[in-house]
Each structure stands twice: as structure tokens, then as C-alpha cells.
């Protein structure tokens, strides 16, 4: 076998192995990270915990509202993907936007922001301690750049969407490279699996 062909075969096999990751477009995190647990302030001003989402699958994104590019792009893709799902599935899935910028993202700011994307999206934020606890739990980080002269600043954050099942068990990380169709396929598969489990129970 020529080296080129050998290399191509190797690449194809690797590709197959990657696809064999239970057929997800995203990255499976099942069993790799702990179940959902948090205490945060919702866009309603109320303190909420993971029990707010009890019994519902959750798609969670960490960002901030003063993020003009990647946050709206990712949230818009997520919402477009959800719209492609069968109606009952759409209603089942809870969308959560966790702002890691509590200084600028108060309840009203969060409510205005999430409403622009979907009525099923809940905005959340918290103290630095609460936010650090949650982001560390999912092995992600956030941070603040130096303030500009006008007091504005950039925030670095995770670009992935974390998906949990109805029991709060982490299932998937939807990386920012995924398109609407790929996200929709993963969500549909995850939610269909839940329907199957419900049927057999």
C-alpha cells in the first residue's frame, strides 16, 4: 500500500471512530462530568437552583449580553435548531443563558436579552462564587479583560452549549463549530431517547 493511501485509510478509520462516538455531532460528556447543580439568580430576580429545571432536559450556554458576536450567533443557532424539532420536543427542552458578567447583566438586562431569542430561554447569573462553582463543575472558565477608558471590558467564556438530560445528567457539549442541522440532530436524538425511556418505564 502506498503511504498516501495508507494515510488516507488511517484518516477514514479515525473518522469512522469519531462518528462511532454514539453518532453525536457534539462531544459526549455522559458520565464524565457531575450532574447539574447550581444556585443562581434568575432574570425574574428570584434565587433558583437546579430544581427549577427538574424533569426537563436543559441546554445551557455561558456568555454575557455585551458580547456582540459569538453569543448571539450561538444562541440564534440553538434557537433555530430547537425550531426544527417536533413541537412536543420543543416545549420539553429548557434553554438557559448563564451570564458570567453579573456586573452588567442584572435581571432586566437578562430578561430583555433572552426574550429576543426565545420565550423558553431563562437568563441566569450569580455572584462570582456561584458562577465559579458552576463553571468549574463543567471544567470551563471565564475571565475579564482590562477595562477600556470608557469603563467597558471584554469577557472570555466557554463557546460550547452544555446539554443535560431530564435527570440533570450531563450528556453533550455542542461545540461552536456545529451548524443548526447538526445541533438539531443531536437534540432530537437526545430527546427521542428520553421518550423511549419514558415508554419503557
Amino acid at each position, binding site marked *: 500500500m502506498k503511504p498516501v493511501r495508507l494515510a488516507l485509510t488511517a484518516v477514514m478509520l479515525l473518522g469512522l471512530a469519531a462518528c462511532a462516538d454514539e453518532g453525536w455531532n457534539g462531544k459526549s460528556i455522559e458520565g464524565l462530568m457531575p450532574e447539574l447543580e447550581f444556585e443562581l439568580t434568575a432574570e425574574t430576580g428570584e434565587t433558583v437552583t437546579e430544581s427549577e429545571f427538574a424533569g426537563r432536559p436543559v441546554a445551557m450556554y455561558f456568555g454575557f449580553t455585551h458580547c456582540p458576536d459569538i453569543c448571539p450567533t450561538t444562541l440564534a443557532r440553538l434557537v433555530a435548531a430547537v425550531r426544527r424539532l417536533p413541537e412536543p420536543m420543543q416545549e420539553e427542552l429548557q434553554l438557559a443563558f448563564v451570564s458570567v458578567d453579573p456586573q452588567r447583566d442584572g435581571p432586566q438586562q437578562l430578561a430583555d436579552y433572552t426574550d429576543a431569542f426565545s420565550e423558553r430561554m431563562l437568563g441566569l447569573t450569580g455572584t462570582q462564587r456561584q458562577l465559579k462553582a458552576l463553571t468549574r463543575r463543567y471544567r470551563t472558565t471565564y475571565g475579564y479583560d482590562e477595562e477600556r477608558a470608557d469603563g467597558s471590558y471584554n*469577557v472570555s467564556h466557554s463557546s460550547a452549549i452544555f446539554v443535560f438530560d431530564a435527570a440533570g445528567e450531563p450528556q453533550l457539549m455542542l461545540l461552536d463549530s456545529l451548524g443548526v442541522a447538526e445541533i438539531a440532530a443531536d437534540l432530537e436524538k437526545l430527546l427521542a431517547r428520553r421518550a423511549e425511556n419514558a415508554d419503557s418505564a
Partner: protein
Amino acid sequence: MKILSGIVLVIVLLAGALWWVADMQPAEPIEIDNPRVRLVPGGAPMAGYFTLANHTDSPVRLVSASSEAFGHVMIHRTVVSADGSARMAHQDEGVLVGAGETVEFKPKGLHLMLMRARRELEVGEAVEIVLGFEGLEPAEHTVVFTVVPVTSS
């Protein structure tokens, strides 16, 4: 008579062809396509996107952007590192567009960060943004951006 009208016809056709060929040359040294501002509610900064083509035979550099509709405009690029962490990088040296090249300002890449909107914007509205260039005469180009929904790409 017939010969004369034939000659006139040929001349007219030739002139037309020449005019057409001349018209194929880009009239403008740079071309900006699909300029749009993605509306974000709540007073948060918005992103401006467009395609910038340099039709000249030398490089041009986009160095500034400003708008009466916004308190401040910056040229940014979103950078996602290998660990999945996203951040915005200010383009200190502007954005270079080589001779004959095209650069796309698009979601999750280069964008104008439009801060502190001076008035409430609405989808479908037109917003003027002045782009400043180096290597181009005149240096400033006023571009009319269309406000698009936050859910558009």
C-alpha cells in the same frame, strides 16, 4: 444607402461593445457587500458585518469605523481557542485587504463592535457607518448598513 446604414450599425455595435467592456471594470476601488447590523436588545453592543473587496492593485487597510448612531465602534475578531474558550481580540492594526482580495466580516470572526447605541434601532432601519482606510483616496467611505434581527446570521 444600404452600405452606409450597415457601416453605421457596425460603428454603433462596436461603440456599445467598448462601452460594455469599459463598464465591466470596477467603478469603485473597493466594494462593500451586504452591510448589516445585527440588532441586540437591552442596550448591549451589536455586531456589524459585511464583505469587503479590494479591486485596486495595492493593499488597503481598514483602520477605523465610526457612526453617529453609536457612541463607539471598534474593529474586533472573535477568537475561539483550542480549549473552546471564546474571547474578542481588538484589531490594533486594523484589517489588511491585499490587492484584489476580499475579506469577510461575519459571525464568529471579524466584526465591527457597535457600542452604546444613541437611539433605539429597529429591524429594517438603515444606519450609516463611516469606514476609514489607509491606502485609499478618499480615505473615508460612508456605508449604509441595514438593521437585521438578532436571529439572522
